[in-house]
Every structure is written in structure tokens, then in C-alpha cells.
């Protein structure tokens, strides 16, 4: 049972790493120029601090996943540290995606009470790419949550091992 749980967790980490890398790549390559009333303005991901934070947070989480996949095999003595870091990284991923979603919602629907107009009609391609990146980031966060809960479950249930 230990082996199957080990493979499952490694597989989930790979999946999460793929989702994070795709989120970063899609966000970084999203830009579009639009001309409104003779003013050309470019929509890039660096215009808003949230999307910068999103890219940095996904990069940190992706680097951590890569490290754990490469260096830490089974039966390592640092398993407690890995689980604690998993909790922290899950929290970071969830926080980055929820912050980016909050600002992206304002960009898409606007906020009438504050007088903020939505910008998605002027830059639709940029909006679509950001949406795709956010979907990928959301998938990475969920995968990490499932991974964390299954690691805890693997440790907390009594070990069903054969003791003859």
C-alpha cells in the first residue's frame, strides 16, 4: 500500500507541476494592444501587481515541486518537513489564485459602485489568455490540496502492514 500511495503522490505532484508551468507560461505571454480614442494602450500582465504575484507564487510552488520530485525519494527522514512545506505551498497557491480571480473579476465585470469599468471588451484576447492561465492555476491549487490531504491520510491511518 505504501508503494501505491507513493506513486499516486508523485503522479499528483507531476500533474500539479505541469499545471503551474502552463499557468506561468500562458500568463507571461499574454499581451494585447488596443487603440481607444487615439490612445494606444497595451494590456500586459505586469500592469497589475496581482498578476505579477500570481506568476511569482506559481514559480515558487513549481520550483518547490521540482525540488521535491528530484531530490526526495521515499523513506526520507525529512518527511515531516515536506508535509509542512506542502501545507505552506498549498496556502500560497490558493492565495495566489484567489487574489488573481478577484482582480480578474473586476476586469471582466467592473465595479459599478467604485466607478471601475470592465476592460475585457477592449482587450478580448488578453482576457482570454488570462482566463486560461487562471484556470490552470486553479487546477494546480486543487491538485495540491488533494495531494496534501492524501499524504495526511496515508500517515494518519494505522499502517496496515503484515506483522507475522
Amino acid at each position, binding site marked *: *500500500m*505504501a508503494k*501505491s*500511495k*507513493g506513486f499516486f*503522490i508523485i503522479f499528483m505532484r507531476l500533474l500539479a507541476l505541469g499545471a503551474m508551468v502552463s499557468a506561468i507560461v500562458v500568463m507571461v505571454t499574454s499581451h494585447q494592444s488596443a487603440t481607444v480614442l487615439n490612445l494606444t*494602450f497595451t*494590456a500586459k500582465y505586469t*500592469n*497589475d*501587481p*496581482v498578476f505579477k*504575484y500570481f506568476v511569482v507564487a506559481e514559480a515558487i510552488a513549481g520550483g518547490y515541486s521540482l525540488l521535491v520530485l528530484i531530490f526526495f525519494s*521515499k*523513506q526520507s527522514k525529512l*518527511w*515531516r518537513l*515536506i*508535509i*509542512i512545506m506542502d*501545507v*505552506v505551498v*498549498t*496556502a*500560497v497557491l*490558493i*492565495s*495566489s*489564485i*484567489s*487574489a488573481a480571480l*478577484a*482582480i480578474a*473579476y*473586476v*476586469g471582466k465585470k467592473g*465595479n459599478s*459602485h*467604485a*466607478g*471601475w*469599468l470592465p*476592460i475585457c471588451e477592449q482587450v478580448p484576447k488578453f482576457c482570454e489568455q488570462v482566463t486560461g492561465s487562471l484556470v490552470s492555476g486553479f487546477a494546480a491549487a486543487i491538485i495540491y*490540496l488533494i495531494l*496534501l*490531504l*492524501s*499524504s*495526511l*491520510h*496515508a*500517515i*494518519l*491511518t*494505522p*499502517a*496496515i*502492514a*503484515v*506483522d507475522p
Partner: protein
Amino acid sequence: MALQIEEKPTEYVVERKKDWVVLVLRVVAFLATASATLVMALNKQTRTLVVATIGTTPIKATLTAKFQHTPAFVFFVVANGMVSLHNLLMIAVNLFAHKFDYKGLGLAMVAILDMVRIYTFKSFFLSNNQLTNQSTQKMINKQVTIDDLLAPMQVNVGMVSGGVNAAVFMAELGKNGNDHARWNKICDKFESFCNHGAGALIASFIGLALMLIISSISIIKLVKLKSTHLQP
């Protein structure tokens, strides 16, 4: 039967000694998240602003800033409220667990867990009757220890971190505006609203930090591992 009666008192004494630090941290975390919820939920400011001037008569408009205007703040209030209730429940479980034996609940949990195991990991589990009886016996008769509250704790950490970060970036947008998107800042007009929101955010961040510390302490003190390491 004789073995179980002898084992219980020693477990009882050992668990009690270690509990106080985590309990105090949990109480402070509960207070932090509850205060964040309350302060943000009661956050409201009304101001009368001069919108335009026609001739000599100024036109005034009454504008209200409420937390419901922004979905991020609504999520913040809901997440912190749920997490503070759950923290309260966990404090109660920590304090009063050894007074109740949850035998009936244990049986239901074991039944559900067994069904989940059988349907998901069919070939990998031993169908040895002796071992399953032993593990089910242990599950039914156990007391609630610090390890049982681990999984809910992680979910709570996730919720609080999501809520607080969404709210913090919306607050930053309200404070600084965004030139590229032509979004004006609103904090210069609604100062009290912004200050109260900032206080609620700080309290929630403190709660998040404390909950991370509680999680780490619980994981470091994990005692349920048997001889074979189930390494994730």
C-alpha cells in the same frame, strides 16, 4: 478487555501535558479570525460628495461604501466566519474530547472509511480478517487526539489564505488605483472604510500565521506512525 482498561489512563496523562500550547494558540487564532469577520462585516461608510457644480449650486450625491460591493470582501467575511466557527469547534473538541467516547460515531466512520477503501484500492489492501479487526478495534476505541484535527486544519488554512489574499489585493487596488485600466482609487474619499478594512486584514493575517504554526506543531508531533514508514 483488561488490556484496554490498563492502557487508557497512561495515554490520557501523556496527552494532557502537551496540549496547552496548541490550545492557547487555537484560542488566539479563533479570536483573530472572529474579530476580522466582525470588523469587515460592520464596515460601512457614507459620504456626501459634490459631484458637479451647475452655476452656483453644487450637486451633491450620497455615496456609500459597503463591504458587499466587492465580491472579494464578501468571500473574506464568509471564509473568516466559517473558519472561526470551525476553530471554536476544534477548541471544544480539544477540551472535551476525553470526556466523551465516540463509540457510535467511530463505528460509522469505520464503516464509511472501509467502503471508500474497498472501492478505491481493491487490490492493494489486505483482506486479512485478523488485521482489519485489529485496526477497526483501535479506531472504535480511540480518544480524539491532536492528530485527528490535522486534516480540517489544513482546509481551514487554505480558506483563510484565499480569503485574506483576495481581500488584500482588492484593498491595494482601492488604495492605489490602476492607471492602465483607468480605475480610480477610492481610499482618499472613504478613509474610515479603508482603515477598518486594513484592521480586519491585519487580524486575519495574524490568524493565518497562527494557524500555520498550529499545523506545523501538529505535524511535528505526529505520533501515529507504526514501524513501517508510510512515506508520501
